[in-house]
């Protein structure tokens, strides 16, 4: 069965510090991978998605970047965090299968920038 891991679960970082959040998927090959951010009381905002190794599409201009060094690994990074980067970050994967494109989410990382 497929599983998705995210770490860390919570993170408190000072403004200006770097960030690295990691997401890995097990039990599937060549998944589409996604990074979302959820602000308090809001829906999910798609930040990045990837259809393959080294292929990253950015949805919104921001202080963040993403990389996919391996098929089932997706990393969210920042060189210098801003206060506005605080939020709940969710990684998700999907596989194109007919017309069904369900996404499966990781447990999330709660980031607080102080």
């Amino acid at each position, binding site marked *: 069965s497929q599983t998705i891991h*995210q770490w860390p679960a919570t993170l408190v970082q000072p403004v200006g510090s770097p960030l690295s959040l990691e997401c890995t998927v097990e039990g599937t090959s060549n998944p*589409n991978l996604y990074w*979302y951010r959820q602000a308090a*009381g*809001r*829906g*999910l905002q*798609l930040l990045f*998605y990837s*259809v393959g190794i080294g292929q990253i*599409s950015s949805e919104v201009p921001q202080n963040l970047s993403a990389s996919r060094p391996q098929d089932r690994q997706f990393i969210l990074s920042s060189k210098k965090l801003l206060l506005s980067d605080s939020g*709940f970050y*969710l990684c*998700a994967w*999907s596989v*194109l299968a007919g*017309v*069904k*494109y*369900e*996404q*499966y*989410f*990781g*447990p*999330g990382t*709660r980031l607080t920038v102080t």
Partner: protein
Amino acid sequence: SQQGEEDPQALSIQEGENATMNCSYKTSINNLQWYRQNSGRGLVHLILIRSNEREKHSGRLRVTLDTSKKSSSLLITASRAADTASYFCATSQIIGGSEKLVFGKGMKLTVNP
């Protein structure tokens, strides 16, 4: 940009009652999905309804889709305290070979025991 909008934004009911949540969207879609999120956790996929379907059932869940009105509803029958969570609708579009889900802001359901 936000596509799905859930209504109401918050709902509080008693255990055993039915809960109905509505979702409206603006553009054409491939399918519409409903997700559930327990507080501080990731989202869990509940049910998917394709654009050519009108109604779908899964256990205590019933989803309808009206593409002419660009709206969907999620009905949870015989609610339980464990159904307390936030519920999101998400519309699916395929752009550049990749699925994109556009989520609404969510609706918080509280089921009182």
